[in-house]
């Protein structure tokens, strides 16, 4: 055994290992720094060149120098050799270096094992369908390489690949059983490194100029929603995120702390829905106004924003209920109202003057709101993702000069106008609308649906949602952003598909992805319990699962062993037909014996069952012809003769 491990690798088997290294490292080139990819690629080429000429592998000092160089590069790039990204970079480097000291079977096993880890670590970055297919393809190649390594001298390429495919196929039932029955543990076993979930885009908890405009250019999916009932009207689909009350003249921020619980007065029956949130690294969730039913481990913060206990670091499902018509905090504390009237001193004098004018003309707050909306509805204001740059008095610049902006500009200008007029108002960040996939009925909300709107507090009505963008660009709410913007605006490619066929393809692909996410990637301890209770196993502690798993795996193993080892008796069709005819005789009470020849049996039939005699003679004749004359045509005659036995 140990001698086998030290055994030198067959020269012809080495390219298989290069293939294993390449296929497992390749996906990492999407995420690793360019120089590391180049480093790994060059070493692979070098190794191939050495192999081709059967040249001597580089000495220990060369390897040491290369490893030192690689480590230095990784240190410069990531400022660490550990952590998620740096660790993956180290794996890539080690895999490349191992190709330069590939001598024995043991080295080959190290390469294969490194390959497994490289496959695994790629799932930090992607777990889509293509990644799943890549997994299968890689394992196929690895299996073929293992067969080639341990299969003695040169088995033909196609036979090796076919055998590898059958081994992987036979492994699939085990995978399925383990996937379904292996006791699932949710949550990390220990703290994740700092960079475990780096680089996520999404709504942030503050709103600086241009933040949302930038987000809108991403076609990434923010979350998916499935309603239990029919889809509500589009203009009700306001997905509420963080509420921003503090304004410093440039940036809107959340105010710290929890407020007293909301008083929500539902005016319509609640709708219920399930949200599948993509990882956002934020604690707040996105809920339809106004949330009336929350899942456990989540809470509202006094501003109607739902929060989870921990940041959403992976795709997660929540069930909510919402009343789409509601009254919210009709009685509000004076502290909150004061805070929502505050403005930074000395900024935006023109806006203030305008609002003070409105107030002094004796208008009610509701009338002032309408006045402001009328202002935006005027022909001067335009909706664009590429607004001109604004100066220190940004709101003044926008309202009186550029008049071109995006939802965040309108929401901010509106709130400043309201506050200047003494009406409590604040900015709400979130998403609006979404696109329903007709194939699976899921509503898909993308980053490009990010939105900002305003909320004003009116005496007797509580906080009321006002969306100035709806006035400026009504189509934004009805059809989504793709229809609002003029050609040439920087929009994500997915939204620019105007052709029906392409759109249909996209729907299909996204429905497939969603099914993959919901059914396969989303399989967790809860789904495991659901599945088992549907199978009639109510009590599913991990012990029961373990017993079930062991039993089913043993069964599968026994079935596989029986199937692969059973030497099927090779009966040719002629023998099968002959046996059928003999069974027929038994039914007709002919006492034939196993040692009798066909001709003897025919004789016996003529004696015992004369009615059968002629028909059976034809069977015997055809059988003997097939058997000994060797013509395949006779098989048909035999089949017909057996079929015609009375």
């Amino acid at each position, binding site marked *: *055994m*140990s001698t*086998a*491990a030290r055994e030198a690798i067959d020269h012809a088997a080495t390219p298989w290992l290069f293939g294993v290294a390449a296929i497992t490292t390749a996906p990492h080139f999407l995420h690793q720094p360019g120089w590391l990819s180049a480093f790994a690629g060059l070493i692979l080429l070098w190794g191939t060149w050495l192999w081709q000429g059967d040249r001597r592998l580089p000495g220990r000092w060369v390897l040491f120098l290369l490893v030192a160089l690689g480590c230095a590069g990784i240190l410069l790039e990531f400022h660490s050799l550990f952590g998620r990204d740096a660790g993956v970079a180290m794996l890539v480097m080690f895999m490349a270096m191992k190709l330069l000291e590939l001598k024995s*079977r*043991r080295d080959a*096993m190290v390469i294969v*094992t490194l390959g*497994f*880890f490289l*496959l*695994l670590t790629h*799932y*930090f970055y992607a*777990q889509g369908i293509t*990644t*799943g297919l890549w*997994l*299968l393809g890689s*394992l196929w190649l690895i*299996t073929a390489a*293992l*067969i080639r*390594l*341990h*299969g*003695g001298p040169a*088995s033909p390429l196609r036979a090796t690949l076919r*055998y590898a495919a059958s*081994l*992987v196929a*036979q*492994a*699939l*039932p*085990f*995978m399925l059983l*383990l*996937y379904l029955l*292996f006791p699932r*543990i*949710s*949550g*990390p*076993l*220990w703290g*994740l490194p700092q960079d*475990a979930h780096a680089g996520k885009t999404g709504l942030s908890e503050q709103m600086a100029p241009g933040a949302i405009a930038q987000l809108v250019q991403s076609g990434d999916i923010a979350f998916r929603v499935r309603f239990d009932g029919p889809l509500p009207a589009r203009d009700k689909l306001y997905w509420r995120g963080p509420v921003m009350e503090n304004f410093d003249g440039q940036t809107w921020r959340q105010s710290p702390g929890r407020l007293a619980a909301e008083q929500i007065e539902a005016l319509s029956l609640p709708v219920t829905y399930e949200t599948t949130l993509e990882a956002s690294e934020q604690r707040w969730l996105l809920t339809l106004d106004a949330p009336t039913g929350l899942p456990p481990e989540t809470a509202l913060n006094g501003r109607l924003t739902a929060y989870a206990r921990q940041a959403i670091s*992976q795709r997660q499902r929540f069930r909510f209920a919402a009343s789409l018509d509601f009254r919210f905090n009709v009685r509000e504390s004076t502290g909150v109202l004061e805070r929502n009237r505050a403005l930074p001193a000395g900024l935006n004098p023109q806006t203030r003057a305008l609002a003070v004018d409105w107030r002094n003309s004796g208008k009610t707050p509701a009338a002032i709101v309408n006045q402001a909306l009328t202002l935006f509805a005027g022909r001067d204001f335009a909706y664009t993702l590429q607004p001109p740059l604004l100066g220190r008095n940004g709101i003044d610049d926008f309202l009186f000069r550029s008049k071109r902006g995006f939802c965040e500009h309108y929401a901010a200008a509106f709130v400043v106008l309201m506050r200047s007029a003494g009406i409590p108002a604040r900015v709400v960040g979130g998403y609006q609308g979404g696109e329903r996939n007709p194939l699976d009925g899921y509503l898909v909300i993308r980053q490009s649906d990010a939105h900002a709107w305003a909320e004003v507090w009116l005496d007797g009505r509580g906080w009321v949602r006002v969306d100035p963008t709806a006035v400026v660009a009504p189509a934004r709410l009805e059809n989504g952003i793709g229809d609002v913007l003029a050609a040439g605006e920087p929009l994500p490619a997915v939204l620019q598909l105007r052709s029906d066929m392409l759109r249909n393809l996209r729907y299909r692909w996204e429905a497939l992805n969603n099914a993959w996410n919901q059914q*396969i*990637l*989303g*399989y967790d301890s809860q789904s495991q319990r659901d599945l088992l209770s549907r199978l009639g196993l109510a009590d599913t502690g991990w012990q029961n699962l373990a017993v079930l798993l062991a039993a089913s*795996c043993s069964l599968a*193993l026994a079935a*596989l*062993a029986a199937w*692969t*080892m059973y*030497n099927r008796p090779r009966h040719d069709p002629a023998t099968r037909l002959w046996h059928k005819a003999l069974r027929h005789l038994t039914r007709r009470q002919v006492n034939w014996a196993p040692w009798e020849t066909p001709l003897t049996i025919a004789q016996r039939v003529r004696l015992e069952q004369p009615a059968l005699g002629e028909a059976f003679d034809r069977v015997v004749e055809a059988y003997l012809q097939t058997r000994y004359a060797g013509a395949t045509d006779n098989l048909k005659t035999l089949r017909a003769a057996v079929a015609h036995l009375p």
Partner: protein
Amino acid sequence: MGVISSLKQRLFRWQSDGTTRFRLNQRRIFIVPTRGGLLFATALLVMLIGAINYNLALGHALVFLLAGLGMTGMVHSFRNLHGLLVTPGRSEAVFAGETAHFTLTLDNDRKQPRPALELGIAGEKSVAAAVDRLASSKINIPLLARRRGWLELPRIRLSTVYPLGLFVAWSYLQPAMRCLVYPQPLFSSLPPPRPTAQGGARSGEGGEEDFAGFRERQPADSPRHVAWKASARQNDEQGLLVKQFAGGAETELHFDWAATAGMASSEERLSLLTGWVISAANEGRRYGLEIPGQNIPPGSGEAHRRHCLEALALFPA
């Protein structure tokens, strides 16, 4: 004998008389992970912990698929031996110091080939074997014959790590096979012939006097008889040449145990007698052998030579 080794003896007990063909079945085949398999298992465990910790659904899938592959590999390693037919063969006698070859025939009546088999005796270098689908293959297992007499074939380990190298399946074969080992020959000049009943007149001719040409060297020929100059003129592929002498075919030689009294031990005496038998047979002369307990009348030919050598090989120590 330790507990472990006695357990091993019991566990791996041979269940056949060892002379007839037999089929490897599940009771004869054992399977354990190889070192590579242990590395594989450890890697899977680490990967599983990683997949749980980072909640990687595809990570779970990868680990479970690999675990399935491991189990499948185990079944297939086992299958590579299961149902194999082993037929003990016979072996050619050799001289002590030479390598004996035991021939086994492996029959595969399955429609899949059985590659990458290894057969070996503990402590010896193993030989690789492979049997194609619905085919058979003859395997020679080499074993150094150290001492004269019967060389019993020790227990053979038939093993395979095919297809994935994660498990080694093996079976112990103990066919009742033995190989006769002749004493190691010691070459020296033949003793003088003794007059025979019918041909005393020609008794003066020596066995090594009349040069009659060259012939190719046999393994049993003494190096001293090699015609080095003539051999050097040959091509490389052709072997060494040995001088052949005529004459003396009609004189009978008599190899007597008593005539070897000058040797130090009885083994050396047997060696010397063996050398004489070989030399005489090579020269095509008639010879007889007399050792304690056995007297073989003069004769010639292959059967006679074998008879003499057998007597020497089996001479009680």
